[in-house]
């Protein structure tokens, strides 16, 4: 379903080259819940950005559902991202002057759904995350945990096959973090493939599989989600 072979990512600033990923290979199957761990600067977020087609890699091959994504035009890549991938960010990334309904509506607008269909989907996902009664509220009127739930609702509204989460509980207290993680686990049980970057070993253990990245390479790729060492922030 997601296949990366020898992916490399090099950032150039003048004469200085920084290798964010080196010969990075990974296979993710449908329905997987993969946690991605590693020390700061190891390449976790770069991997997630490439997986979500937010960045173009400099070498290697990346196939999503059997399709080579490196040759896609901007419009094609945007359409794939919109249809197949949902994002959840550490900072929630809600648009402050749109209410919950309109925030969740954003990806559906780019999908081209009719009004009635968008409304049905928005109400459904807000119901799923327990915020249906607050759809006219602005993000600033919600707690951090509620905002992250809205972000998850937005990611799910298009019924993507992948959910990419970058430190989804990084800005939440323990109680809210567990609540959000339970929601993410439930989403995975319902069939959505999840790749979650985290530095929290406890959260990583909730995944079915852990990928540990070190210096831009996969250093451990096993079904055992117990980490080989304590990840650093």
């Amino acid at each position, binding site marked *: 379903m997601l296949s990366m072979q020898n992916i490399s990512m090099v950032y150039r600033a003048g004469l200085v080259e920084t290798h964010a990923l080196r010969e990075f290979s990974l296979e993710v199957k449908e329905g997987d819940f993969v946690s991605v761990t590693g020390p700061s600067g190891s390449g976790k977020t770069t991997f997630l950005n490439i997986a979500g087609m937010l960045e173009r890699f400099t070498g290697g091959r990346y196939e999503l559902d059997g399709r080579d994504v490196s040759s896609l035009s901007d*419009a094609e890549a945007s359409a794939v991202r919109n249809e197949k991938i949902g*994002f959840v960010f550490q900072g929630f990334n809600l648009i402050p002057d749109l209410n919950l309904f309109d925030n969740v509506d954003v990806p559906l607008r780019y999908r081209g759904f009719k009004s009635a269909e968008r409304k049905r989907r928005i109400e459904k996902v807000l119901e799923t995350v327990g915020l249906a009664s607050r759809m006219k509220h602005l993000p600033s009127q919600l707690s951090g945990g509620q905002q992250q739930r809205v972000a998850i609702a937005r990611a799910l509204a298009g019924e993507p096959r992948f959910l990419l989460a*970058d430190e989804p509980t990084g800005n939440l207290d323990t109680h809210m973090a567990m609540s959000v993680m339970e929601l993410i686990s439930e989403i995975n049980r319902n069939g959505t493939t999840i790749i979650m970057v985290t530095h929290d070993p406890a959260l990583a253990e909730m995944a079915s599989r852990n990928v540990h990245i070190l210096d831009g390479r996969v250093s451990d790729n096993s079904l055992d989600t117990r980490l080989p060492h304590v990840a650093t922030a």
Partner: protein
Amino acid sequence: MFSYYLKLGWLSIRRNPLLSTLMVAAIAIGIGASMTIITVNYVMSSNPIPQKSEQLFYVQLDSGDTNIPDDVGFEPPDQMTYLDAMALMKAGKAYRQIASNRSSLVLEPQGEGERPFNVDTRNTWSDFFPMFDLSFIYGSGWDDSADNNLERVVVLSKEINEKVFGGENSVGRSVRLNGMDFQVVGVMDEFLPVPKFYDVTNGAFNEPEEIFIPFNVAVEYELPRNGNTNCWKSPEGEGFQAFLNSECAWIQFWAELRNDQEKQEYMAWLNAYAEQQKEFGRFPRPLNNRLSDVMEWMAIQEVVDDDAQVMLGLSMLFLLVCLLNTIGLLLAKFLGKSGDIGLRRALGASRSSLFIQHMIESGLIGLGGGVIGLGLTWLGLRGIEMLFGDIVENLVGLDWTMVLTAIALAIVSALLAGLYPTWRACRIAPASQLKIQ
């Protein structure tokens, strides 16, 4: 999606009111300044009689000065001598034709205690009224028998009829001009051609005359002329008759020619007439007669003069400066939205959809600038009116065309200003913006 983009644009404008106000103000000031000048130029160069302007021809006969070398591109005189005008009228070769000139007479009201006052009058022929599509409130123009029989009749403008007769039907009543009684045969409806095409030699933007008198009557009674007179040689003799027989040009001559064939035939006749005059020792210069339709005549007479065009250029430069400021402000605004743009990219927006979204936002800012700019244009035109007085009163009106032009110019300007900032915004790497949020 258009309505969605409009909503996003409006939200974005509201999100940063100070920056948005500055942008709208920059566009509004540029539009206000440029539209003020454009409006004046537009009115100055507009077609005053669009339904007939291609059938009405100003006639020029080159009876001119032998002292000027042939090779300097000398234009024929822009008025005609009495001898030639009468010859053309007598020949009657055009479908309609008129010779006319301007006078200033003293009108003596008949009411007790009312004081005499000056009125501008036009001495012309019966064809003047149908030729220029004039309509009447009361009565009509005079007929050609009045021209031929020296009948002392007049047509009044609506304004002078209001002033002298209180707006009543004055047909059949008389007015006293320079001590002579004239019978009113018609009162015209509003007649305010801008430019005053039928006589640009006496001020293209002056108001039309208040009273119209048969040309032959004016000549017969030697009514005073009030307009340009150009003589390339002095009259031979003394008195009014010598003046009429001279080479002095003081008459404007118009012919209505309904098609190309009539125009060609008329031109041929004019040239034949000039050749004939050469045999009598007149028309010493090479043949150089002209027939110019209304808009050609406006161009030849440079009704829109160079100063106005320089002002137009300067105002457009000022608009450009305002747009450059707007570009800077839009750049700051759009790059300040990089987080929002990065997020939308992540959620599936293509560069092209973001481009459209931000161009629509630019257009909305332009629309705001256009509406306020219209207000500033109105103020600018009032300022010109106050500065220059009645002489520009006819130039400072805003019609629907100019209103729509102002709005369109503002939106197009804002879209142009938005191109580069929008392009830059669409190049933002989404990943970097999402990480730093």
